[in-house]
């Protein structure tokens, strides 16, 4: 039973942390607490942390055959990133 409790706690903590990150980002933007270029970098950093939590804690990406799963995502992100960069530079 202990293991189950741990699992629940893990999920809850991840969720709370994500909500917190969102709230901090929201407040930072609402009150313009940091100057824009740094703020944008920080916001994207926050988003990436959240995505990583989702992938790791909720989607079990590291379980069996994690390599294949990562490969799939990294491949997709690589193509998407190239597309985004070239479209921004337009």
């Amino acid at each position, binding site marked *: 039973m202990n293991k189950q409790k741990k699992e629940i706690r893990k999920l809850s903590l991840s969720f709370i942390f994500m909500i917190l990150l969102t709230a901090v980002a929201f407040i930072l933007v609402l009150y313009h607490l940091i100057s824009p270029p740094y703020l944008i970098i920080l916001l994207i950093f926050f988003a990436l942390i959240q995505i990583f939590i989702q992938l790791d804690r909720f989607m079990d990406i590291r379980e069996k055959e994690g390599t*294949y799963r990562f490969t799939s995502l990294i491949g997709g992100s690589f193509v*998407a*990133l190239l597309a985004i960069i070239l479209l921004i530079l*337009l």
Partner: protein
Amino acid sequence: METTDPKHLYDTQQAQMNILAFWFLIGAEVVVFGCLFGIYLAVKSFTGDGPGPEELFKLNEIMVSTVILLSSSFTCALAIYFLNLTKKAWTLLFFLITIVLGLGFIGLEIREFTLYVGEGASISTSAFLGAFYMLLGTHGVHVLFGVTWIALLLVQLWLRGINQETAPKLFIASLYWHFIDVVWVMIFTVVYLIGKV
């Protein structure tokens, strides 16, 4: 009612292959949304005579949507947790909450869109708005599909119980739901928050 030892719920070769295939579909979806973000970022400043992101977005309401969708992701994870313990009633309950939250999100999004259109910011007003509606619309359709899908699977769960056939399906649906949430985190950050910076 048929129940199986939780350890073996996903052990069939077919279940393993389905899950792996779904991860590759997620890889494809990353490209889809990546390209949509690319389009959006390319034309973000092309606001023409219409409103820009600064004037248009009402951040408080978007924050509500975000919390709703994040919570649905959490309840979905809980549902899978109970699924793995083969507790049918709890699984059903948390998936139902997920569905309700998803429907709430869709409702808020529809409300948001009608509001914008009412303010004269329609899909053909400017390139920025076109890309905005395309990105958000694609995500919204994904949410709608997810809600319908999970609902169908819940009927199966209700009728057939937790077994090697239903459990992998629900697990894959949960992967889909979390992925939608991941996309929303990016939309919230890139479109709404950075739009306001």
